[in-house]
């Protein structure tokens, strides 16, 4: 085997839907969502022989029901990939699809693979967070984690506690900006380029889903002020400054330099480094800080060298803790220029 550079060739996703009975995907299977994303991605690369794909990694946090049956393999069969192409499932909760990319990229980097599909799916309507889980009683009996660690909203309130200068007003302002940036990107047709439309059944017939369902471009600071704080009386985290529960799927095409040359692929970006890191579970939102420090260190880069940052917006306060740590402004234009998960959604 020969080590090689790893490239992100292309990526797509389904439009994101609102989780639950009122959402556009309530009557759509999770595996069908990720299959649509796979087919949509491969249709953009008609000259790539499908049998050249060395592996398919698909993440799902709940690997059960319509996300079960080893979804990496089963979705590959459903998408019509040659039966000679293998597949596997991944789980790292929120960062499942990211881990699909880093894991397949690692295999490509050491030369074991040339081309892989890496993605993820979460139908949070069909599979609420923690569905079927049976947490070990030792977590609480031995105080291994704070009880609030099991509820993501509570973990966000804990970040506000730890950094009192990151106020609710700043969180709300960041959230409104995310909505406005996403609305502008939509108006300019930026987001739609990489959305794979999904035909979805409903009580009244079939719909073609072409846009994210949860956008709230009408959000204002004034409107945000008095939203309920469901996680704590007089809290700071609201439905307005958090990402909504979402259904959706993503898929990307990852390749090594050998395959790029052989198949004439046009890379969009080259992997430089990656890292994962752990923090106290009850303040999980600050996790990107040590992960980024590790990744920068491995790359031999500093935050000043990074010109664009795509950060998940599980909660506005989670992004604020990151920008605060690295000395960036809340509204730094290099952060999520087209908005993020507060506007578009976050399938776990």
């Amino acid at each position, binding site marked *: 085997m020969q080590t090689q550079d790893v490239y992100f060739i292309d990526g797509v996703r389904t439009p994101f839907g609102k989780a639950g009975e009122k959402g556009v995907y309530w009557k759509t299977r999770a595996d069908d969502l990720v299959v649509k994303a796979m087919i949509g991605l491969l249709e953009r690369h008609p000259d790539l022989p499908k049998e050249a794909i060395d592996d398919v990694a698909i993440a799902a946090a709940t690997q059960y029901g319509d996300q079960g049956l080893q979804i990496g393999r089963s979705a590959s069969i459903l998408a019509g990939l040659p039966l000679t192409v293998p597949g596997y499932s991944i789980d790292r909760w929120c960062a499942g699809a990211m881990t699909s990319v880093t894991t397949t990229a690692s295999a490509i980097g050491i030369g074991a693979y040339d081309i892989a599909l890496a993605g993820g799916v979460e139908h949070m309507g069909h599979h609420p*967070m923690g569905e079927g889980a049976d947490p070990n009683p030792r977590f609480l009996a031995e105080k291994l984690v704070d009880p609030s660690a099991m509820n993501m909203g509570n973990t966000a309130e804990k970040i506000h506690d730890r950094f009192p200068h990151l106020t609710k007003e700043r969180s709300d302002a960041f959230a409104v900006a995310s909505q406005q940036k996403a609305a502008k990107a939509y108006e300019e047709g930026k987001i739609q*380029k990489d959305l794979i439309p999904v035909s979805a059944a409903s009580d009244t017939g079939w719909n073609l889903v072409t846009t994210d369902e949860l956008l709230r471009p009408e959000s204002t600071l004034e409107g945000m002020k008095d939203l309920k704080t469901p996680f704590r009386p007089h809290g700071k985290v609201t439905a307005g400054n958090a990402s909504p529960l979402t259904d959706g799927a993503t898929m990307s095409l990852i390749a090594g330099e050998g395959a790029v040359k052989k198949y004439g692929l046009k890379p*969009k970006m080259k992997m430089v480094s990656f890292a994962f*890191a752990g*923090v106290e579970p009850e303040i999980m939102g600050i996790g990107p800080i040590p*992960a980024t420090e590790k990744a920068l260190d491995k790359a031999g880069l500093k935050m000043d060298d990074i010109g664009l940052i*795509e950060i998940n917006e599980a909660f506005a306060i989670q992004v604020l803790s*990151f920008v605060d740590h690295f000395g960036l402004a809340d509204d730094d234009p290099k952060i999520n220029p087209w908005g993020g998960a507060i506007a578009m959604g976050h399938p776990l």
Partner: protein
Amino acid sequence: MNQLARHFEDNPKVRYGMTTMCIGLGMGGTVIWENSNYKG
């Protein structure tokens, strides 16, 4: 990541970017990428 890839296309003067996210039960993940459209 597909958004970052599009941002790179729109910003050929930017060489490096990152995708980062928080993860339940106390983790974070970051991937650093180099813009294939970089024209310094």
